[in-house]
C-alpha cells in the first residue's frame, strides 16, 4: 500500500522532528539547523513525490472535498491509502511542519549568533517574532502529532492496524479496490536530488542566480 519512499519519508521525518526538539533543548544549535534543513529536504521531496510518485502517494489520489469526507464517515468508502478524512491529517501534518520550518529559516536568537539561513533577508523585528512563534508553533505541531497518534490507536481499537503497513508497506487486499500503482524507482532519486538542490540553495541564504 505504501511505497518505500513514503515509508522512509514518514519515519525519517518522525525521527528528525524528535531530534530537532532534542538538539535545541540541549543547546546543539548547529545540529538543530541541520535537522531543520533535512526536514525541509524531506518536505520538498514529499511535495514532488505527491505529484509524480506512486498512486497512494499522489495528492490528487487522496485529497477529497467535504462530500467525500461525509460519505467516508457514513461508512461509504473503500480503497487503499489515505482515506478522505486521513487526507486532512496528512495536509495538516505536512502544513504544520512546513510552517515550523519556514519560521525557523528566518528566526535568529537574541544575540544573532544562532541564525536561520534566511534570517538576514528579513528585518530584526520580523526575525525576533519568527523565533517566538517558532517556539509556540512547536506545540501546535505536537498537538497535530498527538491527534495523529490518537487516531492510530483508535483504529487499532477498531481492529485496523496502521503501523505495520507503514513499516512493511503491505496491507490485506481490499476486494474490489485497485492495488497501488508504483512509480518508477529512479523518479524518487530525481525528486530527492531536486529537493537537496533547493535545500542547499536555501542553506546558502537563497543567493540570487548570477550567470
Amino acid at each position, binding site marked *: 500500500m505504501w511505497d518505500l519512499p513514503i515509508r522512509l519519508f514518514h519515519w525519517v521525518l518522525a525521527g528528525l522532528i524528535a531530534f530537532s526538539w532534542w538538539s535545541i533543548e540541549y543547546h546543539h544549535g548547529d545540529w538543530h539547523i541541520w535537522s531543520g534543513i533535512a526536514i525541509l529536504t524531506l518536505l520538498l521531496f514529499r511535495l514532488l513525490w505527491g505529484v509524480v510518485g506512486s498512486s497512494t502517494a499522489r495528492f490528487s489520489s487522496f485529497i477529497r472535498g467535504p462530500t467525500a469526507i461525509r460519505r467516508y464517515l457514513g461508512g461509504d468508502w473503500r480503497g487503499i491509502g489515505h482515506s478522505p478524512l486521513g487526507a486532512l491529517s496528512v495536509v495538516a501534518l505536512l502544513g504544520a511542519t512546513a510552517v515550523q520550518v519556514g519560521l525557523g529559516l528566518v528566526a*535568529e536568537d537574541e544575540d*544573532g549568533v544562532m541564525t536561520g539561513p534566511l*534570517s538576514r*533577508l528579513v528585518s*530584526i523585528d520580523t526575525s525576533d517574532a519568527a523565533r517566538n512563534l517558532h517556539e509556540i508553533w512547536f506545540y501546535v505541531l505536537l498537538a497535530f502529532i498527538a491527534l495523529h497518534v490518537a487516531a492510530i490507536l483508535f483504529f487499532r481499537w477498531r481492529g485496523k492496524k496502521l503501523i505495520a503497513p507503514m513499516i512493511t508497506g503491505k496491507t490485506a487486499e481490499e476486494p474490489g479496490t485497485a492495488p497501488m500503482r508504483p512509480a518508477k524507482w529512479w523518479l524518487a532519486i530525481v525528486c530527492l536530488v531536486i529537493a537537496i538542490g533547493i535545500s542547499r540553495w536555501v542553506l546558502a541564504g537563497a543567493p540570487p542566480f548570477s550567470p
Partner: protein
Amino acid sequence: MRRFALMIAATSVLIACGSSRPSQASNSAANGAANVAASAAVAAAPVSGAKAAAIMHERHEGMEAIGKANKQLRRELGASAPDLAAVRAAAAKIAGLAAKSGGWFPAGTGPEVGKTGAKPEIWQDPKDFAAKLATFQRGSQAFDAAARSGNLDAIHARFTDLGGTCKSCHDKYRSEMHH
C-alpha cells in the same frame, strides 16, 4: 619588552593618526590591553548590593547593544553593496562595548544574585572565561580596524572571526534568558 612594544605602538598610533589602516604594532598593543582588561574581569573584587545590580544592568544593556549591532551587521554585510558608514558605526560600537566588557563580570554578579544570562561556570573557570573574553575583545578590535580600512574581504573575514568568538564563549558561559 612589553614597554618597548607599547612605545612602538604609541609612536605608530601617533604617526598613523588619521590614517585608516592601523599598523601591526598598534594591533598587538591593543591585544595586550585587552588581555589586561579581561584578566581584570573576573579577578576583580567581589561586588554586592546596588553595585552588583548596576553592573548587571550595564552588562545586560551592553550585551543587548552588541547583539543588535551584530544583527544589523549581518544584514548590512549580506547586501550586495554594504553601507560602509553603517558598518563602521556598528563595528566601533561593538569595539567600544567590548573594551568595557572586562568590568562586567566581577564575582557576585551571577545567577545567584539576580536574573542574568551569565552562567555560574564563568566564576568556576575564571581563567578560561577571561581568555575567551580577551579573544572577543581582540576580535572586536580587529573587526573595527577592518571596517575602518574599508577592505570588504577583510571586513567579511574579521566579522566571521568575531562571530566565532561570540559563539565559543556563549556556548559555554551564556544561558538562555527570556525577558
